[in-house]
């Protein structure tokens, strides 16, 4: 499945023209040097046990907001790859952080009634949010999704994910030597 999206280096001919557009830094390094260090995305791994641990924390800093979802007085903000900020938005002039639901790998969400559905890397999880300060896992559907093998971003180089090292919970920017995947 992933091969339709991630191109390994036989496709380098496609990658190189793209790199030329990245600017001088990449232009110098892309073609020749055998061991090039480039800024690219790198998977952050966790064990399944770590991934499947969902916790309610106190309000956390907003760092990298992703998708948003509105239900009644609540505003939910995805913190990319990390979980969901629960905001009391009864007064949109004064939104108030209530809690943070730590959901490793989380990208998306939806609510029905008092149940919040989230992706938790490979699993789909139903959370009872009746009390946003004490969120409860009420159902987990295992292996609902493939192990994420590429980042959400497009037009990026990245270190290929290695399933043997665990489940990818998010992607971080780092200096990577010879990243072999591109999407």
């Amino acid at each position, binding site marked *: 499945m992933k091969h*339709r999206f991630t191109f390994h280096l036989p496709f380098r001919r496609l990658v190189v023209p793209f790199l030329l557009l990245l600017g001088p830094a990449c232009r110098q390094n892309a073609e020749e040097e055998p061991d090039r260090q480039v800024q690219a995305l790198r998977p952050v791994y966790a064990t399944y046990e770590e991934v499947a641990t969902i916790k309610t924390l106190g309000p956390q800093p*907003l760092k990298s907001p992703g998708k948003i979802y509105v239900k009644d007085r609540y505003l939910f*903000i995805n913190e990319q790859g990390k979980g969901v900020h629960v905001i009391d938005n009864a007064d949109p002039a*004064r939104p108030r952080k209530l809690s943070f639901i730590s959901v490793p790998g989380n990208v998306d969400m939806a609510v029905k009634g008092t149940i919040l559905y989230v992706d938790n890397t490979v699993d789909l999880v139903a959370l009872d949010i009746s009390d946003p300060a004490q969120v409860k896992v009420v159902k987990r559907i295992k292996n*609902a999704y493939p192990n994420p093998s590429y980042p959400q971003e*497009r037009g990026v180089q990245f270190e290929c994910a290695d399933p043997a090292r665990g489940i990818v919970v998010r992607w971080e920017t780092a200096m990577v030597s010879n990243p072999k995947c591109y999407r």
Partner: protein
Amino acid sequence: MKNLLILTMIGLAVLAGCSETGTRDSSGMPNPDGGSGQGGSMARFTVAGNYLYVVNTHSLNVYDVTQNADPKSLGKVTLGFGVETIFPYKNHLFIGTQTGMHIMNLANPAQPQQTSFYRHIYSCDPVVAQGDYAYVTLRSGTACNTGPNRLEVVDIKNLANPVRVSTIPMTNPHGLGIDGNLLFVSEGDHGLKVFDATDPLNLRLLKNFTDLRSYDVIPGNHLLIVTGRDGIFQYRYDDSQELTLLSKLPIDNQ
């Protein structure tokens, strides 16, 4: 200068990925047990009636959520390439992919069937709909995908035969949303555009907030929620089509 522009666009693509947000119709679908909420045009999850639909890169997964706390997997529908976003409307799902928009009917909600496919150039394409029209943004998110950046207005009176009726050039469109006669289109680092959509065939640019970096919007009940690189912004809008900033949840940098 051109390099700078390209770099900026790559930066945006890196930051925003290829999926976005907008508004959704909640009218046509009965939602018992407290009902569902509202996501954006970027969403990959949506609840319609007693079903939760989740799009993956290749497929649409269907869950029965009649019992909210006990979702049951009903299997999946294979959709092909590069599935990005999902938007429920008029008992249909509008599914944005990199090659076009699938319109799937929910006559049997456990097994959505394709009504039609609206093909466009290879691109990222969130979609929202209201009345007889769907609004699709196409973004050339990467340097190797050099298609046009634009907003397409699609006549969906006949869902089996969606027809493009208008095209508006954009700078770097991301998520979008529509409420009444106001259409909001995120322009990434280039801001947020507000159109008067009274006549969908002749959208009229009302405002261009060039300093409001935005990737995604949810409008509804005179409240616009904007997400972007600088945090979450909320605006009040009214019939005078003015936007008033109500609050900001900033990015915490420490």
